[in-house]
């Protein structure tokens, strides 16, 4: 008998009393009608609590904010699906501006190249205001999971329309079969005397730009 058959037979035998589970009570909150303004406020508060930096701007202001956040960077990674419009700023286009490195599934940057990059800019799929969680699902504007991991500085674009209040609303918007990363603040550990230290293996710096008119 194969291990598979044997384990399945063991489990079937263990359930010889034919337990019947009660219906799952879904009395918890599954939807909310919180205003966008309040969602932005809540998400900002939660992210700040995780020691992430948050800017709230209209889309016209994004290139300026990005230029400021990338000041001093040598290079930064962008997924191929991220529109170039975000980088239409003199400080990001002039000679001597930080180098923009495109990453694509068909033409991926090597791990060494990612390791050398100063920062990464990605979009995001959905964000949960209540828990301060930003969800990336690998769409072209968000890129491969690894690009938001190896560079030490992650700048994440969050359209206000993609913010929901509570987790069930976010889960309903996601396709479970995509490779996903849920991010709540920068990398952190509390393993030594429970003292929180931001930044171990993932990006030590997380900047979030909430785009109010998107």
């Amino acid at each position: 008998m194969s291990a598979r058959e044997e384990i399945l037979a063991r489990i079937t035998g263990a359930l010889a009393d034919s337990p019947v589970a009660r219906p799952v009570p879904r009395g918890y909150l599954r939807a909310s009608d919180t205003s966008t303004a309040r969602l932005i406020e809540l998400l900002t508060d939660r992210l700040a609590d995780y020691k992430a930096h948050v800017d709230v701007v209209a889309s016209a202001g994004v290139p300026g904010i990005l230029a400021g956040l990338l000041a001093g960077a040598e290079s930064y990674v962008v997924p191929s699906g991220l529109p170039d419009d975000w980088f239409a700023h003199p400080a990001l286009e002039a000679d001597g501006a930080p180098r923009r490195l495109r990453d694509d599934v068909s033409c991926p940057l090597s791990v060494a190249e990612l390791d050398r990059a100063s920062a990464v800019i990605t979009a995001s799929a959905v964000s949960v205001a209540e828990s301060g969680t930003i969800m990336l699902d690998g769409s072209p504007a968000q890129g491969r999971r690894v690009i938001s991991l190896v560079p030490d500085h992650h700048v994440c674009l969050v359209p206000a329309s993609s913010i929901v209040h509570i987790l069930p609303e976010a889960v309903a918007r996601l396709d479970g079969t995509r490779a996903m990363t849920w991010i709540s603040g920068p990398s952190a550990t509390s393993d030594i005397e429970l003292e929180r230290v931001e930044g171990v293996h993932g990006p030590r710096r997380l900047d979030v730009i909430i785009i109010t008119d998107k």
Partner: protein
Amino acid sequence: MSKVFIGMPPLPAFGSGNLNLTEPFPRAAARELGNQQLRSNLRHATHTIRDKRLKVVAELPDWEELRDAGSAIKESVMADLPALLERFEANFTARGGKVHWARDAAEANAIITELVRATGAQEVVKVKSMATQEIGLNEHLETEGIAAFETDLAELIVQLGHDKPSHILVPAIHKNRTQVRDIFLAEMPGVDPDLTNDPAMLAGAARSYLRSKFLTARVAISGANFGIADSGTLAVVESEGNGRMCLTLPETLITVMGIEKLLPTFADLEVFMALLPRSSTGERMNPYTSLWTGVTAGDGPQDVHLVLLDNGRSAALADEMGRSALHCIRCSACMNVCPVYERTGGHAYGSTYPGPIGAILSPLMTGIEAEENNSLPYASSLCGACFDACPVKINIPEILVHLRGKDVDSRRGRMKPPSQMDLLMKGAQWAFSSGTHLGLLEKGLPLGRLAAGRSKKIKHLPGLAARWTDSRDIPAPPPASFRDWWAKEHVPEAPITQQGGEA
């Protein structure tokens, strides 16, 4: 109807590996109680986490409804487990993953070794995982000539310190920062000799030590917090990013998951991702959660395996009363509120699973008669705090009592009827039947004080009473009995009589 089913494996099939105690809990606990560092670290840690937990739990108006849903979802998983496992396997396989089944620790270790061998790699990076801890994977790989590097900071401290985890969430909580620095200085290749004991510096040292390992590793091994049957998705919940490194950088990913970790649908995550981080670290959400479904073209490992582990879980499932222990999502909330755990620490439980959940899970998985595990159900004051804290409402006290009953039943066959008990009862009957008899016995009190000695504690009583003193000290008896004291203090001066006429 015949009682023998041809082809049906014998039930129950108990687990092996790091589940058994090697000494009874009372003895291990007595030793650990003497460790001041451990006790003060644990007190600080458990109280800090439980306060944080209460704060973030209070933020959710629907916490009790979430617990109800979590408990019912897990109940439905257990009732429907064979079908859910097959559904998970079909979906995970359809998306390019490979599923392996392991009856016990040895089989799981052999499968993993074979998979690593096939890649030609000599070393692997590891995400913190209770399942691999349970099967003793690191030790096994070492005997096979494969080096396994723990990448979670606390697991790294434990591994470099040649130590054992003492808590399932913060495994190195029994070490203070100076001890961590000393371990790093002694054991971490290439460490800066000027390393201070600042936690940020120590985390930085771990970062640089592991960085090259992450960037060059070809094989990673992880556990999984959840496996979603309807989509074939696996989830790993973590904080540091070491998990993401292991799950996305190598070519080959091998995940080990207990068969009980399934959730039926993707939507069920909305319940468990609300319950787990808040219950475990007292955070609204953990920094990183990774989800993957088989292989994703161009993103992450392209050779993806899952080892489904029984190792005594089917035996636990066969216990109608105890099976809800398998609902456990390894949050550690129960140990953080447990007065026994707070004083003895995790090492005393001698198993991968310490604390209240360990006291039921380990004996359920190994059988109550295994090694010394029959002492575990007694490692509790039955105060019920663990039940209140459990996000999926496992009634731990009830299962503890149930297992104590099973332990007594299992001994009954082996023990001669204790005539000592009959004698004791006869003696008590005589003593309490008359004041004179009791007074006579009380004359023996000074003898008890003598037995207690200088420490004023009686540590060992003979015979049947030894089972009481095995895990408790008895204070020395008082110099005089209450009856003697009363007689001395209340010498009647004159008989009290009713007197009238005093207005």
